[in-house]
């Protein structure tokens, strides 16, 4: 398993370059589970219970990746992605949903999602997608952080 945890970033070293992932899901159990999975994968993570909570603290380039549920009270995950794209963010978004309808999937992908995964999520599949965007993410995030968001 886990190219990541054995890979580039050591959790133990507490390196500032450890990638940071945002998780948005209204279900506490799902949030906790994803948090711990990311932790064992050696990824730092912050969780939000709804899209509005994420946006309230939104700072461009704060996170290396966003994992979001679709169906939530208030704004949906797909709408959240659309909002971020409107704000010019290119943050990789992994949509996770119980809703397997092609329409939801199509809307998510056309909104620029990295992947649209069906709950329950397979950890290897999730890891594969995360690896694809987070290789050297710590560095690139640091690079981006030096770059003004409007650039």
């Amino acid at each position, binding site marked *: 398993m886990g190219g990541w945890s054995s890979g580039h970033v050591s959790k133990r070293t507490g390196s500032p370059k450890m990638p940071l992932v945002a998780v948005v899901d209204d279900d506490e159990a799902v949030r906790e589970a994803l948090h711990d999975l990311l932790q*064992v994968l050696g990824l730092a993570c912050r969780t939000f219970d709804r899209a509005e909570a994420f946006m309230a603290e939104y700072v461009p380039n704060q996170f290396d990746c966003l994992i979001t549920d679709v169906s939530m009270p208030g704004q949906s995950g797909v709408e959240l992605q659309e909002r971020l794209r409107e704000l010019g963010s290119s943050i990789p978004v992994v949509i996770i949903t119980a809703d397997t309808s092609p329409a939801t999937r199509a809307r998510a992908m056309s909104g620029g999602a990295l992947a649209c995964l069906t709950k*329950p999520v397979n950890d290897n599949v999730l890891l594969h997608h995360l690896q694809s965007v987070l290789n050297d993410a710590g560095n690139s995030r640091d690079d981006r952080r030096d770059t003004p968001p409007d650039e």
Partner: protein
Amino acid sequence: MSNLLQRATAGGHTSPHAMELADLASESVIVSDVHGVIRYWNAASEALYGWPAMAMVGQRVQTIGSLAHNGTDHFSALLREGRWEGVVHRRGLTGTEIVAAVRQIVRRDTTGALLDIVEFGRNAGSLSEAAYLRMDAELQSSLAASWELDTSAARPLLDAITEHRRSGITIDFDRHPDWVDKLLTTTRILAINDRAVRIFGAHAGYEQMIGQPIGAFWPAESRSVLATLLESVASDRTRLEISKMVLSGSLRNPVIKAWHSAEPKPPDTVFVTINGVTNDERTSWELQASENRYRRLVQYLPTALWQVDSRRAGEAFDQLKANGVRDIAGHLERNPDLVEHAKDVVRVTDVNLDAVSLFRAGNPADLIKPVRYIFAAAPGLAERVMVAHFEGRRNLIEETRVRAFDGSIIDVLFTVTYPVPPEQLDNTFITMQDISERLNAEQQLRKLQADFSHAGRIATLGELATSIAHEINQPLSAIVTNGETSLRWLARADQNTEKVTQLTSRIVSNARRASDIIHRIRGMAAKHEPEKRLINLNEVVEEALLFIRHDIDSKSIVLSASFGADLPKVLGDRIQLQQVIINLLVNSVQAIVQSGQPTRRIDAQTSIDDDGSVVFSVLDNGPGVPAANLARVFDSFFSTKDAGIGIGLAICQSIITAHGGRIAGANRPNGGAHFHFTLPVPTVAGPDSSGAGDIIR
């Protein structure tokens, strides 16, 4: 001969031919008209009284004296009863007094109009005054309530009392209730005529009275009178005792006569007769016609009917009241033997045909006995019947069960109607109506309603399938991720037991959560007989919201739920009420989505209304219901949805109605719809009724 006479006079006039036949009779035959004018006087009459027919026809019978032995004119009694027997004193041709034992019969036509009076007479012979008295009493006994009693078992007591009397002590039975009781218990009924059976409250109870102690039937108010008479005639065989008595009921100024029987009856046989004017002024013909009508009516009444003589219970109640008993229910509970005793002494005196068939009995006699069998399958019913009687209620009605003679248990509507003075106090009526068919129909209706609402639930679950799938997928998703995370920890060199323990316990709790959701869905999907329990509507609403929460979220609807504080519990079926709540919410969701309203709001509220009923309301800001449809939304198969079959609200209405509540829909002044239902709060809620254990169907 009387046949011939009847035939001859059927046309309204007397045929001379028939009269000639009567001329040959050895008994005196006298026919007189309505006014007492003699129309016919046969040869035997000439011989008996000395007067020739020529002299008598056209005269009134009274011209030769026709007073009864006791000096009274019995004519009115004759007309009333239709017949009379007794000893009369008449004046013969030679001026001598002739004592005749006569039998007079009133003949009427089919409409009841009086045709004539036929008298048969014979010479009573020359007897002592006492013998005349006895003969008169015996003759009149057929018109009286007559008893033939066996006092042999009372002989030791009677002898003891006689001994007292000889020693000069005046015997006052009012002061010796123990003697009265003993005497009336040991004196048994040998025979009894119809009139006595009727007056003493035991219609058709003849078989049940024979061999019984007289005390079981004699009215309480005249027991010492009877004891006095019995003692008097039993100790002196020549005596005929006449006394007034008190008798509540049908006879006015009743006179009781008692005498010792002559040979060939056994030595301890005593006759007792009771004569009196019936309170009813109608003639016996009218009474009989009326009684026949009444009996036919009762016999063929399409309701099983019992006539019960509950006087013994009434007497016992009077005694209890005199003893200061007020709380009869408590008293009976402490003294269950009183109830058991009453089941034996209170007797059924008559039943009708429906009663016979209801109890699968062979004939009415099977049912004419103590009332015990009526209560065989209804625990507590006898007590309640007694309590109602004691409290002077007019009737008692309840649904109960009886055990028929073939052992089958039948659901009946049981009614007792108690007599209230001045009605005949022996007549308590019990009616029973077989309601098993109705209960079956109700059962079927309940099943149909249950099927109907089940179909509705399945439909609703179908509509909520996505929402439910999401709801159940969340914990499953958490479980999978937690499991995978655990495996990753376990695969590492630096195993973190603490972390794995935490993850495993999360797996367990999420699995429980998933299982609970499935349990709820199964509850909604299952067919079940409605079960009414005391429930908190707030909890029902909360659980209902779990089903639809995701649906509401996914459609970006803001749901606000406000729960009234301290709601009283209501009697209801949790699943069915949830079904109604979910249905109303789904309707609001669908309406709002169709409307394209940018801000979508649904308010779900519980509260108490002015009547104290518990209310659930759903308010939305959708398009509302077109005014034309408002009146029809609860009709079956009314739908405005493309895919709707229109049973949702109809089911809601049938469920709420079955809960004794109301459901209504309206449009809100500022747009949107407002649907609400109310549920009555049960008035009686015992201290332990808050438990979920009590089921009321």
